[in-house]
């Protein structure tokens, strides 16, 4: 059974967007409790919980909070990363749409813990529905006097995947192009406006109230010891019942896809699974018994990432899948680092050549060589997100890549589920502004 006791607790039976409903199930009591505690005592609970960041990197939140520079004479800021854009991910949207006060309460408790008076929620620009729900919830919380002396700014992005990268998010919030910063200094020392800044994902912050309510040790006992707690898994693709499932970490991949998700529709066969969003590396059906937690998925050679499980049936051509993934990263590359900017373009061209059946053997080797020259060579992880999965598509489905070369075309012969998918990188709506005089 899905566990919906943490970030989506009671969301099925009540309209938690209403403040009174949220308070009726104990909402904002943890905030009152936290405000009676010393800030460092709240951080102690976060450390004890071993809550790991839910945005994709899985870094322990309590440790991140404890890194914040003290005594700098500058304000400390809390930024919530609500710029959810990893392909396959739609958990933060549901948390904010169904349980906005839980995020707000988490913000206020965290702000108390790090002695911050300024919270910024960087919300994905496309999420207009979320913006309207969050704006009303914030206004209700303010009128009820819950914010105290903390200001919470709801800041809308404007369409850029890279702004989910924490230093690019800060640049964007400062009113600049969303391009990542070199590190060090890390945001804990010099973040927003050069001040110490804590940045965490929506789900991470929305988990904080229950940790204060029931204690860090209680939370640490859910799921496996190295990565405890619950995660909202976003299940999508070729599966009977896609959607969000909040489960204890350590739940089985097979149970998620077959028991909860209802398996593969239309009597098709499972071909591949992307476990954590398109930046994570592909898994194969023989790995269905993998437990879904940070360490177990890593041991299986992939990453839990943002827990966005994309299910792929046997109609999909893996060259087309790799191509469509690479087109995304090419579109979203901010252009700052040459290996990522040029490399993603080159990868796209090589994959298109392969798909069209025009590739020579050497071009498959070249593709892997280009990937190698991107991996680990950029300021942020976007280049790795593009190249890492492609290396694994080739490694796991080498025969299929090879057949494109040997047969001079796609072995699916136009029957692939991903045939001819148009990518935004191929459209040019940003026409030059300058007009040529007549």
């Amino acid at each position, binding site marked *: 059974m899905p566990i919906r006791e943490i970030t989506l607790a009671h969301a099925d039976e009540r309209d938690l967007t209403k403040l009174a409903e949220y308070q009726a199930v104990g909402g904002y009591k943890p905030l009152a409790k936290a405000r009676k505690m010393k800030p460092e005592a709240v951080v102690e609970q976060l450390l004890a919980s071993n809550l790991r960041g839910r945005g994709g990197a899985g870094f322990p939140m309590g440790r991140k909070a404890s890194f914040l520079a003290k005594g700098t004479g500058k*304000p400390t800021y809390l930024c919530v990363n609500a710029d*959810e*854009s990893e*392909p*396959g*991910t*739609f958990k*933060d*949207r549901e948390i904010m749409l169904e349980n906005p006060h839980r995020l707000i309460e988490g913000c206020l408790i965290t702000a108390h813990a790090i002695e911050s008076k300024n919270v910024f929620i960087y919300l994905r*620009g*496309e*999420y*207009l*529905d979320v913006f309207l729900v969050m704006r009303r919830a914030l206004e209700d919380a303010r009128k009820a006097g819950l914010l105290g002396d903390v*200001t919470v*700014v709801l*800041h*809308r*992005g*404007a*369409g*850029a*995947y890279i702004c989910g990268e924490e230093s690019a998010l800060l640049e964007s*919030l*400062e*009113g*600049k*192009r*969303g391009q990542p910063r070199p590190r060090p200094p890390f945001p804990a020392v010099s973040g927003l*406006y050069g001040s110490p800044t804590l940045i965490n994902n929506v789900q991470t912050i929305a988990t904080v109230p229950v940790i204060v309510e029931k204690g860090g040790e209680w939370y640490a006992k859910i799921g496996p010891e190295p990565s405890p707690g619950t995660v909202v898994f*976003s*299940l*999508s*693709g*070729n599966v009977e019942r*896609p*959607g*969000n499932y909040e489960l204890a970490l350590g739940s089985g991949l097979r149970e998620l896809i077959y028991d909860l998700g209802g398996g593969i529709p239309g009597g098709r066969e499972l071909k591949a699974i992307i476990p954590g969003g*398109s930046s994570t590396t592909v898994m194969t059906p023989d790995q269905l018994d993998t437990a879904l937690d940070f360490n177990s998925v890593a041991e299986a050679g992939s990453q839990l990432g943002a827990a966005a499980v*994309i299910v*792929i049936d046997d109609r*999909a051509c893996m060259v087309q*899948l790799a191509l*469509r*993934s690479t087109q*995304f990263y090419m579109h*979203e590359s901010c252009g700052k680092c040459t290996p990522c900017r040029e490399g993603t373009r080159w990868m796209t061209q090589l994959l298109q050549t392969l798909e069209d059946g025009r590739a020579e053997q050497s071009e498959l080797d070249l593709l892997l060589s280009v990937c190698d020259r991107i991996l680990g060579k950029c300021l942020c992880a976007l280049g790795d997100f593009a190249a890492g999965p492609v290396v694994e598509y080739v490694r796991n489905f080498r025969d299929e890549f090879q057949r494109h070369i040997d047969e001079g075309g796609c072995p699916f012969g136009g029957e692939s*589920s*991903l*045939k001819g*998918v*148009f*990518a*935004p990188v191929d*459209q040019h*709506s*940003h*026409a*030059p*502004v300058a007009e040529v005089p007549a």
Partner: protein
Amino acid sequence: MSDFAAEVDKLAAPYPERQSAILPALRLAQERHGGWLPPEALEEVAEAIGIAPAQVEAVASFYDMLHLAPVGKHMVEVCTNIPCALVGAQQVLDAFERELGVRPGETSEDGEFTLRAIECAGGCGRAVVVVVDEVYREPVRTEDVPAIVEELRRAD
């Protein structure tokens, strides 16, 4: 002070530094200029924020939701990223192309519709996601497309 500059003042008030209001200001300017940002809109934003127009254009050109070329009265966007593509996004996009008579990225000759393919919109659990004038429609099937277009034509 112009009305626009006064509005930008309000938008900038919650931020410790004024330049943080550039995205809200660009969004407002775009709304007031028919859904896109002509050069004079960029200049208005530059003046209201207190930075050079080139800086404003550098920012505006970075973000996918800010448009530096005219767009139609209605914006129809179809997600074609992997989760949507696996369950028929291309067929939905094809259906909009047929109904609207434009290719992705183009605006219809009467200026009514712009059709775009977009990257993952965060609705993969209810694919295929179509965004019409910033409002999500999910899920959309190929057979839903004529009714959506008809509804938009009737709304005018």
